[in-house]
């Protein structure tokens, strides 16, 4: 059985993986990019990894659309605006396995700190009060904020949760290797909230 097929079996994913490298997509929603930077902190291990996986969509590559079939989708950040919600659903639809990477994706973390405040007051502070000219709330070509920020699984089902702010490069490497090799990852053995 190929590595990809094993990965799929281990997580009861139903569709057969495409032949060749494991297709990985990553995206950051409402996060700080720290989780993506931690991914890059795998450093020279990225070179080895590049032999087993293909990054088909990510802030690091130029693809502008998510392919229709992806093996592993990795989401950083929480769901804060309409676009985030749409992208999370798209990832769920097209990825066999969906991974919540980092505390923002897993529990809302810092972005969710705005939840106790009324949405208008959040906008007002930034765009009306702390501004000298042209006070206005942007609406043209920018997505509207949702009333409350949610973790990814507040919107779609998630298969693997990796806490940490950010999870270390070692953690990401361990779990990604597990997925590629068809083992069931045990994130809680290698990371924790706030790590």
């Amino acid at each position, binding site marked *: 059985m190929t590595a990809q097929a094993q990965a799929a079996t281990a997580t009861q994913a139903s569709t057969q993986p495409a032949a060749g490298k494991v297709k990985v997509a990553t995206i950051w929603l409402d996060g700080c990019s*720290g989780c993506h930077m931690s991914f890059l902190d795998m*450093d020279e291990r990225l070179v080895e990894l590049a032999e087993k996986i293909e*990054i088909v969509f990510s802030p690091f590559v130029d693809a502008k659309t998510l392919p229709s079939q992806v093996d592993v989708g990795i989401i950083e950040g929480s769901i804060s605006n309409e676009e985030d919600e749409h992208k999370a659903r798209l990832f769920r639809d097209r990825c066999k396995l969906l991974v919540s990477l980092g505390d923002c994706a897993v529990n809302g*973390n810092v972005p969710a700190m705005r939840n106790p405040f009324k949405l208008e007051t959040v*906008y007002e502070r930034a765009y009306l009060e702390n501004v000298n000219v042209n006070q206005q709330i942007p609406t043209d070509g920018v997505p509207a904020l949702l009333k409350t920020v949610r973790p990814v699984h507040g919107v779609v089902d998630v298969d693997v949760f990796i806490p940490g702010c950010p999870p270390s490069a070692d953690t990401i490497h361990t779990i990604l290797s597990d997925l590629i090799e068809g083992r069931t990852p045990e994130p809680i053995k290698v990371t924790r909230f706030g790590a």
Partner: protein
Amino acid sequence: MALCTLPGTATMSRTISIDPVTRIEGHARISLQLADSGEVEDAKFHLTQFRGFEKFCEGRPYREMPALTARTCGICPVSHLLASNKACDDLLAVSIPPTAEKLRRIMNLAQLLQSHALSFFHLSSPDLLLGWDSDPAQRNIFGVMAQNPELAKQGIKLRQIGQTIIEMLGGKKIHPTWVVPGGVNEPLDSAKREAMLEMLPNALTIAKDTYALFKTMVPRFKDEAEHFGTMPTMFLSLVSPKGQLEHYDGFLRLKDAEGRIVEDMVTPSDYPRIIGEAVEDFSYMKFPYYKPMGYPNGIYRVGPLARLNNADSCGTPFADVALAEFHMLQEDSGPVRSSFHYHYARLVEIIFAIEMMQRLLKDQGILDTRVRARARGNRTEGIGVAEAPRGTLMHHYKIDDAGLISWVDLIIATGHNNLAMNQSIKQVADAYVDGNKLSEGMLNRVEAMIRCYDPCLSCASHAFGQMPLSIELKDAAGNTLDRLVRDA
């Protein structure tokens, strides 16, 4: 790559949207409004993320601010950590021990190194090495790994050295907590000092080699250098009290497009006198401007290009040689005006960061154990300013008697460049985009120009956000008629 054919009818108002803008740090979209003739009429850079730090920090104890605001950005968390702690030092009304200041400087330079390496190698080298029109599916760091593994490995190594120094000092590569109000919470030990000093010569070799390589490449990009943002703007940055290159402290300097000093030795806490902020409907990123000239005339740029234009010298040997060469990029003796040369400036700063870290680590007092001043809130208002990799970063807090935050304003490095990025998009689109015949390589040039600024949209989305590439054809009524999407 799927390109649609654009109807060439003469009555249509058309918009090209580049969505998402990739290989930048954050979420954004570019839209180009085309006239009937196919010429670019207007260009906009939309930041699509907004998080509201300025509101939700309210009510938090000020001591939480460094850890909280660092979460605006995972690429330059150290900058926020420093600006925030400097604002807190101001609230405590303390001056921190000299060794603590030096240690903070080392961490800041290590971050400058890793962040500039990321911008050059991981994000921009695919354009520079593989070509603007190369296959988009390969035009990324993994493509560089395949074509020029040695260079890719060196880039990875350089960033790794920066990140490792941050980790040695702060316990973590991303979001370390070691910098605290009043100083740092642990002195440096000699084993770590030795380990850092051992890594730096290799870093310097890689940095010098890359600089030498890039110098040979610059003439090839003459055309890009002429069109990637050459509009006249002012330049803002910190400089040291002696007018040298500075990233941690010092004073604000503003030079105009001809190189005349407009403002000098401005105490950072005076920034509200010279910097104002405006909002445009099309972006969550605000538009800072130079107040005395009003909005939008008070346009200026920040970051590596501005810092090198403003500094009288770097103060370290090889960086000073490179600075002199940098100035030769501009034929008249004025400031270097093309935003394409942000790349050049970044490589000069990498060299400076390494040389300066070596100097600070060799300092006799660097192992001193007095690294923290202790006090409670003694002022109700504090301002902290530092140079982030992308430019001048300002944190401004007010607290109540209980030490809880009552008001916050953050002016983010990338934000200062917002006006300039918008004007540069227009310029590069005018030069390369023909609305009657679109190509992927054209649009990549628009994005590549943005990459020169190395915008950190994740920072900018404290109040702003994320970049996406598609082209939409709209009729005058705003209905989408057709859409071009860049596929891998």
